[in-house]
């Protein structure tokens, strides 16, 4: 797989954070780098990480399939994560989720445990429920990409979405 020189440099920097005989520790950092650049991790990505760290591809794939933060399919241009857990639910996050789907044109009816992300038809937005985002006092909260938002009631969803185009 072709990766940019910059990405390769960053990968080497991460590898240097761990003892020389423990390169495998850099698996998650490398996967994050790839996912940031490509949006998700595919087979080529898995092989690239494995080669870089001198481990078997299965040792990388088993991480991709375990961690909710790693994806095997492309999300939308903007990926939304709405907190689903108790304090946010008490503050109305299910309504927030419904509103996001309505405004962004996303159908969540096909969502399952193994396929938690739903993408809008135009590919602009994707959405999933996340578990407690550690801001329970200001729920409902969500992440759009790396941007964090507090008190996202159904009423302010439309305005929030407008910031992204």
């Amino acid at each position, binding site marked *: 797989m072709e990766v940019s020189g910059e990405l390769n440099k960053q990968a080497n920097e991460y590898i240097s*954070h761990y*003892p020389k005989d*423990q390169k*495998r*520790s*850099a*698996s*998650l*950092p490398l*996967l*994050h780098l790839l996912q940031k650049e490509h949006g998700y991790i595919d087979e080529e990505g898995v092989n690239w990480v494995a080669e870089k*760290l001198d*481990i078997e591809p299965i*040792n990388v794939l*088993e*991480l991709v399939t*375990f*961690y*909710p*933060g*790693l994806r095997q399919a492309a999300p939308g241009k903007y990926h939304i*994560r709405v907190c*689903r*857990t*108790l*304090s946010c*639910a*008490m503050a109305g996050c*299910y*309504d927030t989720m419904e509103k996001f789907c309505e405004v962004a044109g996303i159908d969540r*009816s096909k969502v*399952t*445990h193994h396929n938690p992300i739903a993408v809008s038809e135009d590919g602009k937005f994707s959405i999933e429920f*996340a*578990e*407690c*985002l*550690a*801001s*329970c*006092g*200001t*729920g409902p909260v969500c*992440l759009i990409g*790396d941007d*964090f938002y507090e008190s996202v009631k159904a009423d302010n969803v439309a305005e929030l979405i407008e910031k992204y185009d």
Partner: protein
Amino acid sequence: MTAPKYIKGKEPHKSEYRMVFRNVDRRGWDVSIKSYIADGGYKDLKKALKMKPQEITDEVKTSGLRGRGGAGFPTGIKWGFIPPDNKKPVYLICNCDESEPGTFKDRYIVHQDPHQLIEGMLISCYAVGAKVAYIYIREEFPEGAKILENAIEEARNKNFLGKKILGGKFNCEIFVHRGAGAYICGEETGLIESLEGKRPYPRIKPPYFPAALGLYMCPTIVNNVESLCHVKHIIAMGGQKYANIGTPRNTGTRILCVSGDVVKPGYFEVEVGKITMGELINDICGGLRKGRKLRGVIPGGSSAKVLRADEKYTIGTGESERTIGINDIPMDFDTLAACGSMAGSGGVIVIDDSRDMAWILNNINTFYAHESCGQCTPCREGSLWMKKITDRMVSGAGVPSDLKTLTSVGDNIAGRTICAFGEACAWPTQSFVAKFPEDFKKHTSRRNAGKQLNPESKVAAASLKS
């Protein structure tokens, strides 16, 4: 050091004792090392480096500091578990996974006062003999990871970090390691596996107590963000003086995070055991919404057993034994344990009489079913069964035997698993069903068959099909 002023509307409550949260929401404050040094930052590191490592551990022991991550284990004693004849490298890991539902304190330290954490970590590394430390931060704090990386770079430029720190013999590096969205990475041995680049399957204890066999099978100290910040203040004031804050055996301050049905949710740093549940909810958090009554409180993160508002609690032993109501419970480790729950992570979730406890439990069960790592059969299957049973109840398809089945599933998980997640997922079910049977019976009575009584009912019904 000048007395800090705070952003308008975010001033600490008058019953707070701000130490670790001194700089949170502070006016004119930013995350730069300049701000931190101008306020006297890194002075305690200098002081610590003039002491012997063992003296620092002794101060921490004297302070009585108990871990703020969940278990409340005495920090100094944990540090003392590193085998004395150890020849391997020692590691320190800062647990910044903050993912216990209801907990939101480490977030503010990382986002607003990263240098306090770094200083606390450096002092701790020096004390335990670690030359490399990792901050394991949850993936959902992308901004926090950047702030920490920046702060580490700033500290390195000033030679607080790196080789021959401040001209002495101490070398130390700190690296940020991002997780990938799994709650089990907060469990210390799961965290270590994750940091080693594996699936975060917790290790069996014994023998894998991190202080003896941790990261790369070397002695490893894992401490919570808040705990490591306290170390800095212990060195600043001395262990004995720190021990005078709070109450005996429950010393110092701790940050309580309140969410749920209160007028003013938020984070509050208070002396441990000096305020009661009633003061926390009614004075500090402005009480419940108009016309609402308290029904229950989850006092230490979602895995803590729920306390029922109209129950009586017996605390103390011998002559000091007394029976109190929920509002009179002092917020400390030992009392909350005596009340049958725990102080846990400091996440207090308040529930009023508008809520249906079956719905609340269903939400919690959904969390644990999603987060079980899957290694142990009782936990993997049980957490899912508990979710499915409450799904069924909430979606209007409950049957009378569900209550018994639920409790029996919970009873068969706790104590039969590799890690404490087993307890964490069983305690909510065991306590909610035992304390609020009327709510669960409502869902299993014939009268309500087919009725969807909750906003979550539809979702629960849908998830039963998938």
